[in-house]
């Protein structure tokens, strides 16, 4: 069974981003970029399923600028077999990415697509669900456990939901989006990073796939949120209670 793992290149999660002075967006000049953490979890899951003998091939795909090749190489170093880059300098919104991925699914015919539940830059949390809708496939978002039964043609997924956990059985083919507790991704070892350089990486353009990626949303401005200023230090419990009662008036 083939698994497709879409991955996104984003600002590293440790970076404190800065809003550009002209309000046009985030300053990305000289900022460290990395694979979206949820996508690392998706790669790890696919690779583990391969190691367990359930999955036969893991194909990583990224949509975006040429530098996404680096992100794909990381996925290859973590154990993906092949990479596909849909290269474009255009701004890609989740619906456009879902359409590109649908076209890739058409070429690759995977039984399962595993991707991160959200990207930590736009925090949209849409692409997996949109892809499932466009393909007419079933979906399980926010996965914390994935059990594939290829012979029976289904996948059982435990999901993190507001009240706790829920387990769904989906007919394959299906789309699964990962939550934080699905697994702990491995680190790429040096030999695997070297090996990854030799793994196949194909580059396509949105035009090759016949997909119109024009954005539907226009960003009018980006501003910093109102700053919270640090308050005061209290000396002890008694002073804390006094402040909460008499100054903030949040406890009776």
């Amino acid at each position: 069974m083939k698994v497709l793992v879409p991955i996104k290149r984003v600002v590293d999660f440790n970076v404190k981003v800065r809003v550009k002075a002209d309000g046009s967006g985030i300053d990305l000049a000289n900022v460290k970029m990395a694979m979206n953490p949820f996508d690392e979890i998706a790669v790890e899951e696919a690779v583990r399923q391969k190691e367990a003998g359930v999955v036969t091939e893991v194909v990583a795909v990224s949509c975006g600028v040429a530098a996404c090749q680096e992100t794909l190489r990381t996925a290859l170093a973590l154990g993906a077999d092949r990479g596909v880059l849909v290269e474009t300098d255009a701004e890609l919104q989740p619906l456009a990415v879902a359409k590109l991925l649908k076209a890739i699914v058409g070429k690759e015919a995977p039984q399962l697509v595993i991707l991160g539940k959200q990207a930590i830059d736009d925090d949209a949390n849409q692409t997996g669900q949109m892809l499932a809708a466009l393909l007419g496939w079933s979906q399980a978002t926010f996965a914390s456990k994935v059990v594939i039964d290829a012979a029976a043609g289904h996948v059982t997924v435990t999901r993190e939901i507001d009240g706790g956990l829920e387990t769904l059985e989906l007919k394959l083919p299906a789309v699964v989006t990962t939550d934080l507790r699905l697994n702990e991704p491995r680190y790429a070892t040096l030999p695997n990073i070297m090996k990854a350089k030799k793994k196949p990486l194909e580059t396509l353009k949105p035009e090759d796939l016949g997909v119109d990626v024009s954005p539907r949303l226009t960003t009018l401005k980006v501003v910093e949120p109102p700053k919270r200023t640090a308050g005061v230090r209290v000396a002890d419990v008694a002073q804390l209670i006094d402040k909460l009662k008499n100054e903030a008036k949040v406890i009776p």
Partner: protein
Amino acid sequence: MSILVIAEHDNAHLKTATLNAVAAAVKLGSEIHLLVAGSGCDAVAEQAAAVAGVAKVKVADAAHYADQTAENLAALIHAHAGGYSHILAAATSNGKNTLPRVAALLDVAQISDIIAVEDADTFVRPIYAGNALATVKSADAVKVITVRTTGFDPVSAVGGSATIETLASASDQGQARLIGREITKSARPELGAAKVIISGGRALGSGEAYRQLLEPLADKLGAALGASRAAVDAGFVPNDYQVGQTGKIVAPQLYIAIGISGAIQHLAGMKDSKVIVAINKDPDAPIFQVADYGLVADLFQVIPELTAAL
């Protein structure tokens, strides 16, 4: 053109997040319809009809809506989307699961997690874990939107008198089957609706310590309990306690962060709280930069003291 808001419920009770989503719809200024899709959900339809500002409640009652699976809900909403300029749901796990599917079926963008309405096409939403606020304008004919509940004060659950209409069900997609749910049982208020939240981090060290120290304090304050990702990952508490960028977004009157360092991903979920208290033994912990009241101390010593003194 009217506005369709998707009701969040468990077939018996309308969830309060719906009231926040309706509040966002009110700002758009057209007639508001509330969709209740469920099974044996008459009681929910009646509660929905009482919500202030709602003109019509549309009820689709069928066995295949009982579990709120995205495939079936999205097919239903898509089938009845005609005549609506906006389709809204609260950005709960249900709303986030279903609405992008609806948007894709309609071939429109979704605008996620809005915190403000500028006009009928223009909305404000946090990006980068809330470190920036983007104002976005949609060029689509239908706006599909999830609403961050902390951005809109809920409308009143009573006082409305909407008419209730039955809606034809869409066919069962038969793609996903619910095997089971493990819902955390608690007599405490829900995190999203609580006025006071006591939140514990990695420093608690164990689930036992978390319960022994934080539950009595929460009892005294009538508070909900929350946690950092580290506390959840370590298994101290269930996953639905997590506050943050990828957990729950909360904005209570009082948030007490205990043994939490204040990583940006955690701050993303609680920095809009009215009053923040931080208790941490490290005077340089970043949580103090957003705290109104900071107490540098060992939590194992001061939490029992605090509980006793209240």
